């Protein structure tokens, strides 16, 4: 079992991972919680899910989260793999999973998962992380909160700057524009 960083409200904690990832070429172990590939889920899903264990899935960047729609309510965890940290497809997958498919379960970032991308992952709806760079929960949380403000709504609950401005304008804040460089 490997270690995971999990977000719990405004904290980040280290958690033991009860799930085991089973590669396609390996046999499914007799008991315990497992994570399988999309193709295995498609071919063996009903049998696996009916066996009294928790089942999760790991999607590669090219695989569409929409293909999970039918199984989603029965999945205990969804993992989105970052093949390389520069491959930004999992961010869109996460947004669709949270926003469009209404997935509320655990959403994990696995693969080439690095602290410098923590903000983007958290904002796109990931709430569990397997950092490849040995980041601690404190480091992870700090990296995800380097900005006091954000310019857009995303899958987290942060209010964008244009909402803050509205609150300020209605007397709930004290923010005034002034001349740049004055």
């Amino acid at each position: 079992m490997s270690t995971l960083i999990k977000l719990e409200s405004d904290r980040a904690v280290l958690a033991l991972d009860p799930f085991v990832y089973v590669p396609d070429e390996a046999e499914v172990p007799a008991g315990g919680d497992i994570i399988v590939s999309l193709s295995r889920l498609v071919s063996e899903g009903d049998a696996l899910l009916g066996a009294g264990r928790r089942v999760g899935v790991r999607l590669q960047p090219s695989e569409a989260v929409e293909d999970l729609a039918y199984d989603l309510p029965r999945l205990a965890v969804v993992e989105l793999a970052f093949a390389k940290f520069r491959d930004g497809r999992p961010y869109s997958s996460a947004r669709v999973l949270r926003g469009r498919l209404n997935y509320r379960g655990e959403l994990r970032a696995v693969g080439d998962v690095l602290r410098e991308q923590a903000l983007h992952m958290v904002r796109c709806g990931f709430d569990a992380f397997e950092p490849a760079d040995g980041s601690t929960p404190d480091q992870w949380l700090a990296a995800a909160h380097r900005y006091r403000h954000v310019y857009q709504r995303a899958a987290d609950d942060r209010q964008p700057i244009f909402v803050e401005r509205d609150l300020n304008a209605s007397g709930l804040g004290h923010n005034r524009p002034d001349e740049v460089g004055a």
Partner: protein
Amino acid sequence: MYRYDDLDRQMLTDRSNEFRLQAERRLSGDITEDQFKPLRLMNGLYLQLHAYMLRIAIPYGTLNTAQLRRLAWVASTYDKGYGHFTTRTNLQLHWIKLRDAPDILDSLAEVGLHAIQTSGNCIRNVTADPYAGATADEIDDPRVWAEVIRQWSTVHPEFSYLPRKFKIAVTAAEKDRAAIRSYDIGLHVRRTREGELSFEVLVGGGQGRTPYLAKTIREHLPAGRLLSYLDAILRVYNRQSRRDNIHKQRIKILVATLGVEEFTRRVEAEWALNDGADIDLPDTELARIRANFRPLAFEPQPAKSQAFEAAKAADAEFARFTRRNVHAHKVPGQTPGDATSEQMQVIADLADAYSQGEVRVNYTQNLVLPHVKLADVPAVYARLKEAGLATANIDLITDIIACPGLDYCTLANARAIPVAQAIARRFADPERAEAIGELPIKISGCINACGHHHLGAIGILGVDKKGEEYYQLSLGGSGGDDASLASILGPAVSANQTPDAIEALVETYLVHRQEGERFLDTVRRTGLQPFKEAVYVDAH
């Protein structure tokens, strides 16, 4: 001009603090160069031949004088006392040390400047019509929308690790001065028959090794729905573009592969599902941004100024300056786009005195003083001339666009600046240049086309032939509203032959031109044949 409020400025501060941490992690070896590279690129730092290059954003090409003075100060404090204004209205400093970069970014943030997303595979800083807010033929101020896009795209959680770079340009005038058809997304503000503001949305333009002109995917997008529509385009691109071959990862390739109809269908399907209410700005915020661009207060001026007419009558050189530069004041010189710290200070002084404290940078690498009274033009001219900034050559053969080329850039195959200089010397006689008329020459040192050679009436592309610099000529390109891509004339010529070849092209044009034709018009009418004959006869 948009004024950053406390929230905008806290974003800049947080960004430079973040980059300081990232640079420290790199300098201490905590992260690898591979991991650091996209982080520094998204903060404008390239590793070039001799040093780091810092690309500073000048959003929609507008600067106030405090900002221009700060750029001058940064260039003399951390660089060699000059900067290079680029075709994307950025300022590049070419001799930067990594350990200075966080301090530079802090200093820029103090005046509301930054280098955020000026490079990297993300949504780059947005460009707009350089005459925005100061031209009579626009139906809206495109900078309002450029600023809307800037805020939405800054540190975007989903679209910061795209397959490739992504550039957006906005124009609101009938005449397209922002070259929007050569962008990943071009936005043309129009009014519907009912008078509603809307966007024509064009997608898939680009230069580089596979040039395409953008195609229209929507004729009338309601203006208030802009961001949700951009979100849909970006999501389709982020999810569906290739990622296995860096040369085939721009959105132009996805559009060309799917066909514009299928691409449009996918965008529209995504847009129908995305949550527009969460993405599109509320009207109050749109109004707030718009209020920042309120027209400046001008005293009414007579259409003619006696002082101006008298000065023109007395000084032929000044008269030529007013013919070419009456809207645009050229930063010259031998190297297109380069300006020293002292020249930046002069421009800032003039803008304070005569142009409401505002300066524009445009994609032809010129600086514009957008609000000068006619009566003040002689005084401005005198001061520019003193500083070596009064070249009367806007749009003429010597007003050349060039990338930094092999003198600075690791990607380049050939030098661009010496070729520009040689041509400028060849056509140095201002009367001859004026007789030749509008003839934009654009030079790129490699196929990445930073010098826009596909869009030059004459385009020049540097190529490497067995270790020697050669130049491939092409004719007939335009980045305006009559946009077209230039066609290759024939075999590349050597550096020495290039000025002769340009001369042969010009002479051929002068022989063939009909009343009122620009070089571009003549090429379009006659085709390449007469020009081919002239260049390759002379070259043998």
